[in-house]
């Protein structure tokens, strides 16, 4: 039951079965009832004819003529029989056709009443019988009860019903098979686009195709478009990994070369310090690469809602321990219930690095403010995170260099380490910006990270 078409086919077959079954049952009942009614009417006609033919005989009994008008009463075993019984249920007369047969007496109807019944001959042939009990008035004025009974074998009727059923089943089976075949052909046509997508994805996996063709019915166009987005972002991601790895490998080569040169000449002045310097550099490079944003926001198909107050509280608690001796005074101002749409790790990295730097450089005060930013058509609000301190601030030159040229490791702002470079990368991956100013109130550095709201346009 894995495939859509087999599911559809099975459900349609079940539906057809139920529908046809009901139809067959209704038709069959209608046919059988109509047939039986017709038989009863005929029997009634024969009975009336029998009554008309009955005459009192010479004695004081009723008699019927030797030959009746209906020829089927005259041929033996014709299937149509008649008899006349007296008050004691003795057979007074029996039609020629019933010669050698014993028609069961059956139930005697009330005087003046008709009674239809299903009975059977000794050999099991089913009969439909009609009995009529009458009070016959003789010319001499005496009354005598008699029962007239006509019976017809149901053999032919049953054969007729069976034939009808055979035909009915035959036709319906033919119709059902035709419908299932037609439906499965229709299904093949309908599901063709799905198979096409599957084939195209296989081609993409094999590398013989770049993206899905887009020539799909309306219902599937969205799926195809999202699939293409996913493929694109996956490709961009792997490009970025390749680029990062490439970058990492190349940036590690220089310190490695320097270390080799130092090792070859261990007599050089300040050997261990210079060696250590290279290790430091390699470590910084690795740390920077490891702390870079986990992904760009476009790749994050599912964004978490990060509870800003809670995460900042954890950070501040931790930093209070780390800066236990310095005891910076934290002023935290967060819009209540504020959420950041993104990765928790990225948020902690943003706020953690900024707070850590602020604690490091502040004289005594560190201030953090987070407010949401809202734009038109936003489905999730953005965030403006500002961290300021009362330290010496960041020299304009260093700030400009960091913001304009883009960060190179060997140029990282002294003292602010790789933290700001990481913050800048993360902000950029969310489509945001980093700005470095001087705090009006506290006099030290004021660093603002603005993450734009997520709009339906850039999430699609």
């Amino acid at each position, binding site marked *: 039951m894995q495939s859509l078409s087999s599911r559809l086919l099975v459900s349609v077959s079940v539906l057809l079965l139920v529908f046809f079954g009901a139809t067959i049952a209704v038709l069959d009942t209608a046919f059988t009832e109509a047939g039986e009614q017709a038989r009863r009417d005929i029997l009634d006609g024969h009975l009336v004819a029998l009554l008309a033919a009955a005459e009192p005989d010479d004695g004081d009994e009723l008699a019927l003529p030797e030959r009746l008008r209906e020829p089927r009463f005259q041929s033996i075993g014709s299937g149509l029989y008649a008899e006349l019984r007296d008050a004691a249920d003795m057979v007074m007369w029996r039609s020629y056709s019933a010669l050698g047969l014993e028609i069961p007496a059956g139930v005697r109807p009330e005087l003046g009443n008709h009674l239809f019944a299903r009975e059977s001959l000794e050999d099991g042939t089913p009969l439909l019988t009609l009995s009529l009990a009458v009070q016959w008035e003789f010319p001499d004025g005496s009354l005598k009860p008699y029962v007239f009974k006509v019976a017809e074998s149901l053999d032919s009727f049953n054969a007729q019903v069976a034939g009808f059923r055979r035909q009915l089943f035959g036709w319906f089976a033919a119709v059902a098979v035709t419908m299932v075949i037609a439906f499965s052909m229709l299904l093949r046509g309908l599901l063709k686009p799905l198979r096409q997508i599957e084939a195209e994805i296989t081609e993409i996996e094999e590398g013989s195709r770049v993206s899905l063709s887009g020539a799909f019915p309306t219902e599937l166009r969205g799926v195809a478009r999202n699939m293409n987005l996913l493929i694109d972002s996956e490709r961009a991601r792997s490009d970025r990994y390749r680029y990062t790895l490439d970058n990492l490998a190349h940036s590690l080569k220089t310190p490695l070369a320097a270390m080799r040169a130092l090792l070859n000449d261990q007599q050089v002045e300040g050997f261990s310090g210079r060696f*250590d310097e290279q*290790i430091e550099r390699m*470590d910084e490079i690795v*740390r920077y690469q*490891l*702390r870079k944003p986990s992904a760009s926001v476009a790749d994050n198909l599912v964004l978490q809602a990060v509870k800003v107050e809670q*995460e900042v509280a*954890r*950070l501040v*608690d*931790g930093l209070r*321990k*780390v800066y*236990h*001796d310095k005891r910076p005074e934290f002023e935290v101002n967060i819009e209540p219930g504020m959420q950041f749409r993104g990765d*928790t*790790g990225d948020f*902690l*990295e943003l*706020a*953690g*690095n900024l707070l*850590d730097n602020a604690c490091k450089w502040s004289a005594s005060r560190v201030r953090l403010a987070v407010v949401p930013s809202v734009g038109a058509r936003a489905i999730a609000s953005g965030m403006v995170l500002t961290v300021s301190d009362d330290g010496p601030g960041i020299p304009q030159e260093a700030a400009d260099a960091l913001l304009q040229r883009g960060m190179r490791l060997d140029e990282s702002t002294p003292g602010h380490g790789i933290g700001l470079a990481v913050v800048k990368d993360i902000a950029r991956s969310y489509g945001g910006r980093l700005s470095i100013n001087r705090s009006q109130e506290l006099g030290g550095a004021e660093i603002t990270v603005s993450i734009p709201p997520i709009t339906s346009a850039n999430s699609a």
Partner: protein
Amino acid sequence: MRLLVIEDDATLRESLTRKLGESGFAVEQAADGKEGLYFALEYPVDLAIIDLGLPEMSGLDIIREARKQGKTYPILILTARDRWEDKVDGLSAGADDYVVKPFHFEEVSARVAALLRRSGGWASSEMTAGPVTLDLSRQELRVDGEPIELTSFEYKIIEYLMVRAGQVISKAELTDRLYDQDFERDSNVIEVFIGRLRKKMDPENAIKPIETLRGRGYRFALERNQSG
């Protein structure tokens, strides 16, 4: 002071143990999380250095368990993971500070000194009580501004007593904390060292920095000039 180092990398663990030992600490070492937790709960520990990425049981779990069992000694975490997520997890679990790998030994030793001082309630690395000043970072003892020459063992004793100024420290505790585990123990040695310390710090017997409480132990008796 008795330190516990839980680190699975043998080179790093041994180097830390050796260098901390050289700085005058008695060091217990554990190579995996389960062993580490046992030491952390069952041994007298003044400070634990715990790597976060350990086999058998994570450093975070050790910290949580130790805190749950009421252990209050400072914990310094070592982490190879530099992301704030990991640091915050460690600090929230109950650690007091972190050092990111790779590190210089001096960094670890400075954090250890700061944490120990802090746990004794001292706010700066220069602890002053009356005329006595102990500089933890330079491992130097001064009385009335004059540096006093001390052997490393004498220094360990005065450091232990002074960090816990005001508390009564039993002879057994001093032996316990100041010797390595398999060192020969002899409580008479402590008496001898205390005697020498008194002579060096207070030749005229005027300031009486170390008080002897019969049958109970010793106490650094001078009032702190500043406390954290």
